[in-house]
């Protein structure tokens, strides 16, 4: 009974915090002067600009997905399945951009390719006449989005490769060379992972606000934000957000149908993976990966370092933003803790299928994760901006609700993976011995799932810390976080201060990861 109550409470919380705002926003968009009307949508679809925005959004998302797949899958294979030297180091290096807000990468590229950027400084001023228009176009936006989201393909390719039954590849290796085995066996078997990555990259790109906004590339989330913050036209903002929501829902349904049909023999295996020897091609692959790492990761981060390389810049950065840094850390910690607790119960529900509605809860969490942050933000305001709930709307609680709405899917899935490693019999043995639900939870499940809990907290912390899209829309006065502060300072602060703030942002994001890596290393 206690177990059912806890799990039902978790589902209800997810619905109240995540789904209710989106539904409320949708209902409000159908109302004009208190009457039911489709006027907002008529206005939306009659405007030429909206169709241009939709086409820009789809173009950007499609091209980003294609390019990240083209580079990400081979890189994932090289890092996980071959004897490429320094492959672990490369994998870590390529994943770093995912940890930092993408618009910081855009800022770095601006310092490099802008009209008066480093490229123009080194190669001569005329070059800036070419690089700057490139950066402020689909091409530049693509460059930033690809470097920010390439890790999604790399991580999922590596993870799914790790789950292939090695015998499938060995059976093929009895009659074929590695290139043939990879093409015909390994890649088709991990295709659900590649497809999942494609869906994620597409959805994350189409919902991205920071990068297109920084590079003046007009897309739907930017329009939503402008309608909301510049024109205070809540209904127009909502109407502009709905196509993104519908698109997300459609992609999610396709993903579910496709993955359900195509789940091959993938499982967590303790057997060592078969490593493909690169042989004579090693120097070629090593050079190609090094060049890609230099362009996509080392260049933007080094530029921020070089740009901010003065004590004055860091001093100024701290003077302007110490309060935001502290708030960012506090809110991200609180958000990660809430996410871990909710993820613990929802992950248990998903893995153990304890209630009939486990699939619905998971679908809601995934839907919210894939929904653009601006949509969730507007939804939260539409639900909580009332006299009765002003205590939530006007406090940091609204930011936390945004984090929970958006990122519960991450902690839920991590916890579900953790629970899948704990045999049911362990909990059943405690139950037979007379332990109630909360005792089983505290004495058996939580201690055994502590790695999953730590992972869920850490991932939650990183995603809350880097969040711009939701926080930018919902933050009450004097509650801005560091990503929001950097974004708002960009227009009128010296470049070296912005670069210093970006480096601080990168450092505080990577700090917990480094700490965890050290703890793991020393504990073996």
């Amino acid at each position, binding site marked *: 009974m206690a177990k059912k109550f806890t799990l039902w409470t978790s589902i209800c919380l997810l619905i109240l915090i995540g789904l209710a705002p989106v539904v409320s926003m949708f209902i409000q968009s159908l109302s004009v002067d208190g009457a039911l009307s489709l006027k907002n949508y008529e206005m939306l679809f009659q405007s030429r600009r909206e169709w241009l925005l939709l086409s820009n959004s789809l173009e950007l998302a499609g091209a980003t997905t294609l390019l990240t797949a083209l580079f990400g899958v081979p890189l994932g294979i090289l890092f996980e399945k071959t004897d490429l030297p320094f492959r672990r180091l490369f994998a870590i290096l390529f994943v770093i951009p995912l940890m930092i807000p993408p618009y910081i990468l855009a800022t770095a590229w601006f310092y490099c390719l802008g009209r008066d950027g480093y490229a123009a400084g080194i190669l001569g001023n005329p070059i800036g006449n070419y690089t700057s228009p490139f950066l402020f176009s689909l091409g530049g936006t693509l460059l930033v989005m690809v470097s920010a989201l390439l890790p999604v393909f790399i991580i999922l390719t590596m993870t799914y490769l790790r789950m292939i039954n090695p015998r499938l590849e060995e*059976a*093929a290796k*009895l009659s074929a*060379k590695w290139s043939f085995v990879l093409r*015909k*066996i390994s890649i088709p*078997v991990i295709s659900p992972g590649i497809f999942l990555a494609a869906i994620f990259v597409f959805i994350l790109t189409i919902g991205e606000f920071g990068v297109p906004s920084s590079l003046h590339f007009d897309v739907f989330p930017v329009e939503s934000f402008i309608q909301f913050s510049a024109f205070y036209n809540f209904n127009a903002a909502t109407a502009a957000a709905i196509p993104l929501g519908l698109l997300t829902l459609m992609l999610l349904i396709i993903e579910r149908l496709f993955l359900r049909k195509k789940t091959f023999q993938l499982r967590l295996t303790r057997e060592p993976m078969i490593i493909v020897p690169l042989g004579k091609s090693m120097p070629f692959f090593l050079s190609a990966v090094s060049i890609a790492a230099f362009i996509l990761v080392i260049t933007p981060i080094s530029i921020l370092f070089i740009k901010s390389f003065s004590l004055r810049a860091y001093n100024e950065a701290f003077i302007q933003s110490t309060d935001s840094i502290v708030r960012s850390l506090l809110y991200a910690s609180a958000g990660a803790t809430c996410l871990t607790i909710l993820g613990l119960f929802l992950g248990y529900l998903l893995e153990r299928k304890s209630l009939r509605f486990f699939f619905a809860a998971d679908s809601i969490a995934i839907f919210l994760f894939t929904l653009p942050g601006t949509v969730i933000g507007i939804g939260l305001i539409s639900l909580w901006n009332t006299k009765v709930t002003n205590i939530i709307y006007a406090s940091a609680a609204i930011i936390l609700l945004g984090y929970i709405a958006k990122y519960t899917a991450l902690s839920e899935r991590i916890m579900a993976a953790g629970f899948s490693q704990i045999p049911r019999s362990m909990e059943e043995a405690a139950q037979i011995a007379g332990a109630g639900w909360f005792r089983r939870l505290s004495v058996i499940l939580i201690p055994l799932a502590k790695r999953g809990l730590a992972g869920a907290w850490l991932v939650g912390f990183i995603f809350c810390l880097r969040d711009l899209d939701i926080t930018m829309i919902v933050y009450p006065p004097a509650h801005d976080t560091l990503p929001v502060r950097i974004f708002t300072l960009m227009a009128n602060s010296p470049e070296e201060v912005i670069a210093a703030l970006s480096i601080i942002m990168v450092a505080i994001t990577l700090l917990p990861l480094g700490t965890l890596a050290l703890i793991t290393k020393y504990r073996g």
Partner: protein
Amino acid sequence: MIVKIENVSKIYDEVPIVTNVSLEIGKGERVVILGPSGCGKTTLLRMIAGFVVPDKGGIFIDDLIVTKDGKNYVEPEDRKIGMVFQDLALWPHMNVYENLAFGLKAKKILKNERNERIEKILEKVQMTEYKNTFPGSLSGGQQQRIALARALVMQPKILLMDEPLSSLDLDLNLLLRKEILRLQEDIGITLIYVTHDRDEAFSLATRIVVMKRGRIMKTGGDKTGTSEEISGHL
């Protein structure tokens, strides 16, 4: 000799798995390597296939050095070996025809010959009507037959089988043993079969090799010793 194993040893994480094993196998023989779990029999089989490289010693196939002293000289795909794995390892995204055609395509066998060989082998394992079926829709026994057909369609000189019947119920196990014997006699292929089941070993082998703790405890010429003798070594 078609397979000659000379003093091979393998150590994993400082634990010796196979120690100084030597064995010679003649053309057309049915050798069963029998031993308890963890005795190194699968590792020995995987060394012959080329998936595990012995730290010491050498393996010769048809008088050609395929591996010696920690180095593979011939890749698995060039050893002319077929293998049936314990979990069968049928490719789930390919239907029966595609599973069988994979190796033939890799070896660039022309389409006509490819189809002919597939038809022929499917007939031999009595699975012709399942050509377009995916492995997930086949029963355990049918999957076994397809795994066997996939190995044999490549016309290998040696067929390796790693406890392929261990997950089947007794009736199906007995039926498939007979089919393996029939096919082996029909094709005349050399069979190296790994199992921990004594009955299976006795029903299939022309020679039984008993392994324990990484070493060969007993090997004989024609049909090794009595059941009691073998029990003494296990």
